[in-house]
């Protein structure tokens, strides 16, 4: 009985604090990346710690966001994914849009998007609660994170350097410095990256904030 009460109390308390604390975390660079568990578009449970041994790239995405749309329409995101996958890196595309908001998709729709766009993520994770997003402090779509084979967070920020201001919509991707694809070799070497933190750009992640 006592244990049951404690359980209820703990549960109530933790859910209360959770509701009060919709707060973005800010995981520090060159320290262990926070572990998470999420469901992929095939209903399989994916845990970050299980992926140790190979580097991981996290991509926050929302297919209706104009920034993301441009990256996919011009085959830019797909080519970065291909470079990463060819190098043996696990690519996780994460959707943190809350149900009813822009970018939220059913598992079937997620797979259809992957096929129709010729994308090659290892998994598409459906983070409806936004828990993973907030754990990593994901603010925008796209927002990129690079984790090395030892589970150390090596990069967080923008995918490239053309995002601030409206120039994004007028600048060719070939003129951009891509922070992810250009630093993959250092990531594979489990080294600290030359550029490890930038300001992400794009649409806001559509968290549940009501």
């Amino acid at each position, binding site marked *: 009985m006592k244990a049951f009460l404690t359980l209820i109390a703990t549960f109530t308390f933790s859910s209360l604090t959770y509701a009060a604390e*919709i*707060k*973005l975390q*800010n995981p520090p660079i060159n320290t262990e990346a926070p572990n998470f568990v999420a469901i992929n578009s095939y209903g399989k449970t994916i845990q970050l710690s299980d992926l140790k041994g190979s580097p991981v790239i996290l991509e926050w995405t929302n297919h*209706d*966001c*104009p*920034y993301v749309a441009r990256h996919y329409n011009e085959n830019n995101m797909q080519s970065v994914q291909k470079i990463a996958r060819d190098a043996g890196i696990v690519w996780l595309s994460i959707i943190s849009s809350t149900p009813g*908001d*822009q970018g939220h998709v059913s598992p079937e729709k997620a797979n259809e998007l992957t096929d129709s766009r010729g994308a090659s993520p290892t998994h598409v994770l459906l983070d409806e609660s936004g828990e993973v997003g*907030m754990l990593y402090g994901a*603010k*925008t779509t796209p927002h990129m994170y690079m984790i090395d084979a030892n589970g150390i967070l090596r990069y967080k920020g923008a995918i490239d350097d053309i*995002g*601030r*201001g*409206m*120039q*994004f*919509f*007028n600048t060719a991707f070939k003129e951009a410095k891509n922070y992810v694809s250009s630093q993959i070799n250092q990531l594979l070497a489990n080294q600290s990256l030359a550029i490890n*933190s*930038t*300001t*992400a*750009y*794009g*649409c*806001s*992640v*559509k*968290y549940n*904030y009501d």
Partner: protein
Amino acid sequence: MLPLFLLQWFNMIRMKNIFLACSLFLCTLAASNPVETGHARASLITNLQDSQQESFYVGVRLEMQEGWHTYWENPGDSGSPFDAKWNVAESLIVENVEWPTPITIPYPPLMTFGYEGDVVFPFKVFRAIDSDLSSISVDFDFLICADICIPEKASLTLDLSSATPNALVDAAVQNLPAKIIQTQSIVEGNRLKTKFKFSQPIKEAYLFPRQDNLFSYTPTQQFVSLGDNSYEITVPVLKDEVASFSGILSINGEGFQIEEQLGSTASMSLWQAILFALIGGLILNLMPCVFPVISLKVLSFVSMGGDDNSKIRNHALSFVGGVMSTFLSIATALIIIRSTGSMIGWGYQLQSPVVVGILTLIMLGIGLILLTNINFASGLTTFGSSVQSRNDYSGSFFTGVLAVVVASPCTAPFMGAAIGYALLQPSFATLPIFLALGLGFAGPYLLLALKPEWISALPKPGAWMETLKQFFAFPMIATALWLMWVFMVQTSGDALILLLLLGLILGIAIWMIATFKGRWKWFGMLVTLLAAVQIFNNLPENTSGLLADSSAEQWNLAIESDLQAQDQAYLINFTAAWCITCQTNEKTAFARDKVKEYLIDQNITYVKADWTNRNEEIAIGLARYERTGIPLYIFWKPGMPGSKILPAVLTEDLLIKSMQ
């Protein structure tokens, strides 16, 4: 026939009415080609009043649908500022947008900064004199968001020759966050604490940082009143070290510019400031601008070599009294001026050409009196020429006053830091520091008052004194010449001729006073006074008399953060024509070829801030280093955590060494 005629007339009246209505609403719209972009209506408007105006504003007005917003230059956690590409005639220059004060647009847990509803983005336009007014067009790309974001664009054209001035532009310009608010910030742990003063009650305040990746953006910022109109706002930081930042502080919805440098100033205690003031005051005696006056005083003490001690003591005390009361008056005046909210600094009185003009005449007058040996003591002791007036203690008192007045453009080592501290502290701390400064300055004479017998250590009086006294006329006249140059930099060549004319009249007056007796003497004084009033009335207004220096960049408040952002080393020289220590340093250090070559070799940007005329921005720039006076030299190069203050008295070797 008649009814038709009437009908036509009636129609004309109606058209006139339509035209009237048009000039109020429709024409503005028609001329600016409003464009429906999807979720907003964009239009181009102006406040250009008449065809002769050389500078005016054009505004891009966005009327956004309810629930939609666009972004400030730092959009916050997501979003993007707009992009405006202008297409204008060569005779026009369109400046960058002057951002209106943003509001917070929270999407918890995210925070964005921007604008909702009806907003006008003003752009200042400069136009070549007598150029034709042509069309002006802009491609305006912007991101508009509600829950979702959409990039929209408008190509807008406005014919300036037929545009009606729109009051919305004036209102937007009026509401721009133009004023700079003085702040003091420190980083404690992961919090930035910024202190500022505000004279009205504050309902809400938010600090919008311009740089991204420095702070985290929270829905509210902790905000406390410290009493005495002081407030402190707390912003969470992302990094341990914040060297500088800029932004807008929104207080009750009204925006103020913030330009902040951190960590470059080491705060001192009150006792340290008082000690610095004592030492600084003592050294002030040796500074170039005070020397002529002090040397006269020393001479007058020499002449007292044979007199009894009590007389020497009284003279010394009178002098000390003059010094102290003047410092006290200056401190009081500064406190009063400060309470009105103005930024003030040491030497600020010399920013007024009238004060410089009067000082010039005083110097010239003393020079003339010394040179011609006119015995003035009987008539006008108040001229400060106390050399002759052995029994007149008021003469000694006034020499003390004069010495401080003349010393005011100078900053001695230690003194700048002390006065800077004094002026940024509450009144109870200001007075003791100024008194300590006076005490330091008058120290040697105070010592003489305590031990009058020490005067025997000075050379014996004799005929050599007369010669030396005449010689001292030249430093006086040299000082007058320097002040004339300051005056000319501040005003114009024409004004200088007026001042010289005044010098001539002064000369005649002195001669009349010395030569004639009784009524004529008073007549001479009256003539001088009338002439002086007349000429000062005709003085032109301050012109921007910059100390031209082609090798130097012009200073602005943001230049340090800009150059640091570019990893560009820099040397900043805060100077003024009236600051003789600054001018000495120019000659002995900055103007030397070795220094110039070093700056070029090491790729150090040389920046000059000219404070010859009153300039609020420079005053605030100095306050960042807890200074209110000059000279002040600032150096930074990549790798240094914060900029450093170089010594106030420089030689070429010292300057180069301190930059290594």
